[in-house]
Every structure is written in C-alpha cells, then in structure tokens.
C-alpha cells in the first residue's frame, strides 16, 4: 500500500508501463526520422533532377527557352 491508500503497482505492471512508454517514444522518433529523411531525399532528388535535366525533360519548353530559363 502506498500513502494514498491505493495498491502499489507490481513489478510486472511497472515493466509493462515502461515498455509501453518506450514503444510510444519509438513511434514518435521513427515518424520524425522518416519525415526528416523524406524531406532530405526530396531536396536531393530535386537537386539531382535539376542537375541532370535537359530541355526535353520540361514540357512545353524549347531548347532555347530552356537555356534562358535556367
């Protein structure tokens, strides 16, 4: 019994609660990491496409227009 009259949680209950908190933190951290990696990959993809693109890669643009718009 603890001071306020309720029963103290057992060792197994404490372990389960700690594991649950770990799992919740795992969800948040994994989501944040994947979002960050996705944003970085988007920037990298944009840089790669921009570096390797030529006039036929852009719709409705002639090679001369492409030269001037870059």
């Amino acid at each position, binding site marked *: 019994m603890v001071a306020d009259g309720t029963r103290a949680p057992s060792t197994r209950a404490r372990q389960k609660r700690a594991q649950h908190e770990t*799992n919740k933190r795992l969800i948040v951290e*994994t989501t944040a990491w994947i979002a960050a990696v*996705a944003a970085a990959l*988007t920037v990298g993809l*944009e840089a790669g496409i921009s570096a*390797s693109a*030529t006039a036929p*890669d852009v*719709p*409705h643009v002639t090679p001369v227009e492409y030269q001037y718009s870059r």
Partner: protein
Amino acid sequence: MLQLWFVSRALGAMALLLLSLVIVLGVLHNTSVVKNADLGLPRFVLVALHRNLSLICVVFIALHVVTVIVTDYVHLRVVDVFVPGIAPFNPVAATFGTVATDLVIAIVVTSMLRSRLSRRVWFWVHWTSYLCWPVSVVHAVLNASFRGTTWWTLAVPLLSMVAIVVALVYRRRDRRRVGVPLSERGHVSEEAIRAVTGELPVARPAAASAPDRQAEAPTELLPPVRHAGPRDGAGVDAETEVLPAAVAPARRRRVVPLAPRSDRR
C-alpha cells in the same frame, strides 16, 4: 519557375516512396513481424507508424499536386487534378495520377470517418490502396521523360515495386494459422482428451474413416441409465454406480417470486 517543376517531380517521387512504405507497413501488420516475440514490435507500434506515415504521405501528395498546378509548364487547372481524363497535358499519365489522388482521398476520408462507417465499407475502401499503388507506379513511369536525361528517376518506382513484392511474399510465406485438413476438423485425438481429462472417454462419436475404425478397439456402450425417482428407488442403484457424476439428474431450481415493491413511483 523552372525549379518548381523539378520540385514537383521530386515531391511526386518521394510521395510514391512513402506510399510504398505505408502499404508495406499495412501488409505486414498481421504477420509474424508483430506476433514474433523476438522482434519485439507490438501491433500498435506498426499501426501507429502506418497511420503517421500515411498522413506524411498525404502531405507530400498535396504538395506535389499544388506545385503541379502552380508551375507554368503543364497548364493544369484545379479540376484537372481531381477529374480523370480532362487534363490537356499528357492526358493518359495525368489520368492515372488523378485516379490515384482520388483513391488516396477516399482512403483518407473513410479512415477519418471510420468510427461512423461500417467495418465492411471501410475495409473495401481501404483495400483499394492495393489498386492505388500500381496506378501511382504507372503514373510515375509514364511521366518519366524517356527523351531527356532524367530517366534515372525510374529507380523510384522500381524500388517501390521491390519493397511491395518483398512484403507481399513475406506475408504469403508467413502462415498465420496452421491449416487443418477438412477430414480432420472436429476430430479430437485420444491423446488430447487424455491430456485434458486424464482418462479416455467411455463413448465417443463414430470414427471418420475406415482404417481408423479398424485400428480402434470396439467401443463398449453403456446401457441407458434410468434416473432415480421417488417411485423406483432400489432397482436403479446398481446402474448409477457406473457413472454417478455424469448422469446425476440436475437439481431443479426453486423459483421464488419477489413481492412487488410498494415504494415504486
């Protein structure tokens, strides 16, 4: 605004990768990935990741759509993004993208209203993600410029296909329940009965097949037991000794009606 077109393509490729990851998590959520104690990944972790990443994927799809509308090169209107087949630029590829967008919107809306919908409706709409993904892949492949030099972006749909195929093969190979042959269903072996009750049954239903029937010892059937009543008491004692607990007549329950409450308003 040329960079906006490249940003739109990068966002679309990333949205396809995220969609593939979300579908992989959805495919794996009922397999041994969550049921194997060694992996230590509870089901709610996978489901929460599936939900969170799907929302991030929706954000990427929305940004892809907005940048496609805003950029000057493809001349798309807002209605072209949601109604299939009316886009002036690259109509076939745009139609696939439009269908994929509509399916994603339907999946997201039904998931948000899941508590108000029947499980069957939500389930069937959610299963259209298996249709949404190949439509998205076709959209990505058709929009890849084969005349230009950015053909290497085809690596994104290729990577997505590999991920989905691996997840589906894993799910297929991971047998969630051991199949019981039809002829064996309902048949309880004597070892199982002995393990539970500690003794063999006196009488049991007929065996399923002829070889089993020949292997078994002939079952001795007990004579019908007459319940001991007030009229014939002495002649029944010898028979009730065989299985006294099993055939004991159930005690009749006395029902005492309660008196109506007088203080009821």
